[in-house]
């Protein structure tokens, strides 16, 4: 007991030296607190996002695999819409979302940016000449999954509603203004070929649209106005498919499956394989989307880990050095105590108690200060990571028009990287910080203990004499 008491008295007696030790310890704890809080919060957000995005499964042609196998386009296995629908009937799934896009033409509804007023023609693959598409009919089986509406970039204006019935559709305010269309007005749109079905729809809603006019400026430059975001005619999936499409010929059919548990991807794949899904097709989560969304967080987590490692190394080194010098400076005191009969173990306990006491005080202050500085640091780091991510993806995104008139997402434009983070210093993080702080205290104390192990009292006292 007297050893602890002596240690506490020493804290005040050697105030200058202990303030120096406390300053270094406090600085290390603040930095470690901030780094750990940021790192752990990033980790949790990445995990949460992984659970969200990781549940979204796509079935798509594995072009890399088929290319490696030397398969030409004519040899590729194909699956029909019915197959996609049957894959959706699985107990592993929470829900399935099917969407379809069909390039359309209208002689009465002129498209935004269409300077030819519907007079442009193009040659189909079979050699026939047809009116070039000016509008895109979009059908989705789950309106909630329309990302632009979910993100608020598109919003149904007052007086309208999202289409629900087979004959309903929603159009952009730009398209409505250009053609003087109001809610309740009928519109007529046709497929490109003579045999393609026509749609007679009632406008149930008009939406404001803040999305980019085109996924790529090239589309506008090439006059592909039907790829313009303002020229979409949104209907329900059932409405679009009511015309009896059985294959995806001439239409862009997409399916998206949502697992109840992202860890059951393998089981779901086994099930769809048993239903006849060819090996040419892959069943996968959208890793690219996951990486893009969580990229800034992962970068920030990495930066905070590196920062913490550097701080712990430098801080530990500084503390060890100060402790070593402090013990050297206290050699006479240690010699006097040893001459009085105090055992080395007791002196070690004193030194360790001093280190721990300093660390506990610094821990209390450091947690508080670390919490205060972690949010602005995280905001700054994340902003940098988001900028880097955006710069990296700029120019690489957009949609590619396929030879058959389909579009394919080639970039990341539809993904929004996480750009906000609320740093939390939870109990688990505080325990981690406390463990690291005590490890530093032990390191600091151990340096002293190892040093005094070499000291013989008589030698110390003689040297002083």
């Amino acid at each position, binding site marked *: 007991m*007297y050893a602890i008491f002596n240690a506490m008295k020493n804290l005040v*007696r050697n105030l200058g030296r202990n303030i120096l030790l406390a300053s270094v310890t406090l600085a290390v704890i603040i930095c470690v607190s901030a780094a750990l809080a940021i790192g752990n919060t990033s980790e949790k957000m990445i995990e949460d996002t992984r659970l969200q995005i990781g549940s979204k499964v796509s079935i798509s042609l594995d072009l890399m695999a088929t290319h490696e196998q030397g398969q030409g386009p004519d040899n590729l296995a194909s699956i029909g819409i019915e197959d996609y629908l049957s894959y959706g009937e699985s107990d592993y799934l929470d829900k399935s979302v099917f969407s379809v896009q069909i390039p359309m033409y209208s002689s009465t509804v002129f498209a935004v940016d269409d300077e030819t007023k519907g007079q442009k023609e193009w040659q189909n693959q079979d050699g026939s000449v047809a009116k070039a598409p000016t509008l895109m009919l979009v059908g989705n089986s789950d309106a909630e999954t329309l990302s632009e509406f979910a993100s608020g970039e598109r919003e149904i204006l007052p007086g309208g509603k999202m289409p629900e019935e087979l004959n309903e559709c929603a159009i952009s305010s730009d398209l409505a203004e250009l053609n003087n269309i109001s809610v309740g007005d009928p519109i007529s749109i046709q497929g490109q070929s003579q045999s393609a079905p026509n749609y007679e729809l009632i406008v149930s809603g008009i939406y404001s649209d803040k999305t980019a006019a085109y996924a790529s400026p090239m589309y506008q430059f090439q006059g592909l106005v039907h790829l313009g975001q303002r020229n979409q005619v949104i209907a329900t999936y059932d409405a679009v498919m009511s015309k009896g499409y059985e294959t995806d010929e001439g239409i862009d059919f997409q399916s998206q499956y949502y697992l109840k548990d992202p860890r059951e991807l393998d089981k779901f794949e086994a099930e769809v394989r048993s239903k006849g899904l060819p090996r040419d097709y892959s069943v996968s989560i959208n890793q690219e989307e996951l990486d893009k969304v969580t990229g800034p967080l992962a970068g920030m987590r990495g930066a905070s880990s590196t920062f913490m490692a550097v701080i712990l190394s430098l801080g530990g080194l500084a503390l060890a050095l100060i402790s070593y010098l402090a013990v050297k400076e206290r050699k006479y005191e240690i010699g*006097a105590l*040893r*001459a*009085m*009969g105090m*055992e080395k173990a007791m002196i070690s306990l004193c030194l360790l108690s001093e280190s721990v006491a300093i660390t506990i005080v610094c821990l209390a202050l450091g947690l508080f200060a670390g919490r205060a500085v972690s949010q602005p640091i995280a905001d700054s780091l994340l902003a940098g990571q988001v900028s880097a991510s955006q710069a990296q993806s700029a120019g690489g995104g957009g949609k590619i028009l396929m030879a058959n008139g389909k579009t394919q997402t080639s970039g990341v434009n539809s993904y929004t990287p996480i750009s906000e983070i609320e740093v939390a210093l939870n109990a688990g993080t505080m325990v981690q910080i406390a463990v690291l702080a005590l490890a530093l205290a032990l390191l600091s104390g151990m340096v002293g203990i190892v040093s005094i192990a070499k000291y013989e009292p008589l030698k110390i*006292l003689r040297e002083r*004499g």
Partner: protein
Amino acid sequence: MTCLELKSVSYRYGGARDLVLDGISASFEMGKVYAITGESGSGKSTLLSLMSGLDICGSGDILYMGKSLRDIDRDAYRAKSAGVVFQSFNLLLNSTALYNVTLSMGISGIPLDSNGKKMAAQALLEKVGVNSATASRKVLKLSGGEQQRVGIARALSHNPDVVIADEPTGNLDAETESAILKIFADVAHGDGKCVILVTHSESVTAMADEVFSLCDGKLAYGEAKREDEFGL
């Protein structure tokens, strides 16, 4: 009863060719005051270091109550059985005089609470001529004489069987020296302890029950003589 016994004790410093102590033998009884005299550099302080368990002799042995200092816990020996007054005091300079004495009590494990230790320490300090005001000052700010008295109080604080003091009155005026010597005499004759004083002082040798002289590493019984009287 024999408290400390030196048996053919020899010692040389590391790397040195000559022995500092050369086959010394002597016995120190409880209840007596011993004085060890000798010229500077004769090995008095080295002998004190060996007797206080701070060092171990190269050959021979030192027995405390019949047990070799090699075999016992020398930290515990210094903490409980031996009280040492160093020539350079070896006090904790940044602590108060009072704390130096109470800490020594704590190390020795005296069964007193904090207040009890303080009261006992204060009484002891008063006895060696350190008043309460001086006792509450840092050792660093005390004079040499005051520090010496604090060192003596610390050595006596845990009621040791043997008190070993290196020039315990070297910095004291005649009046204080007399008072301190009386305390040592009381400790030996009254409390039955063994007091060994390494000294140059004639008044110390005068009050000692037995006197040894140390010269060229040899211990002789009787008061120190000049070198030529040793026939050297």
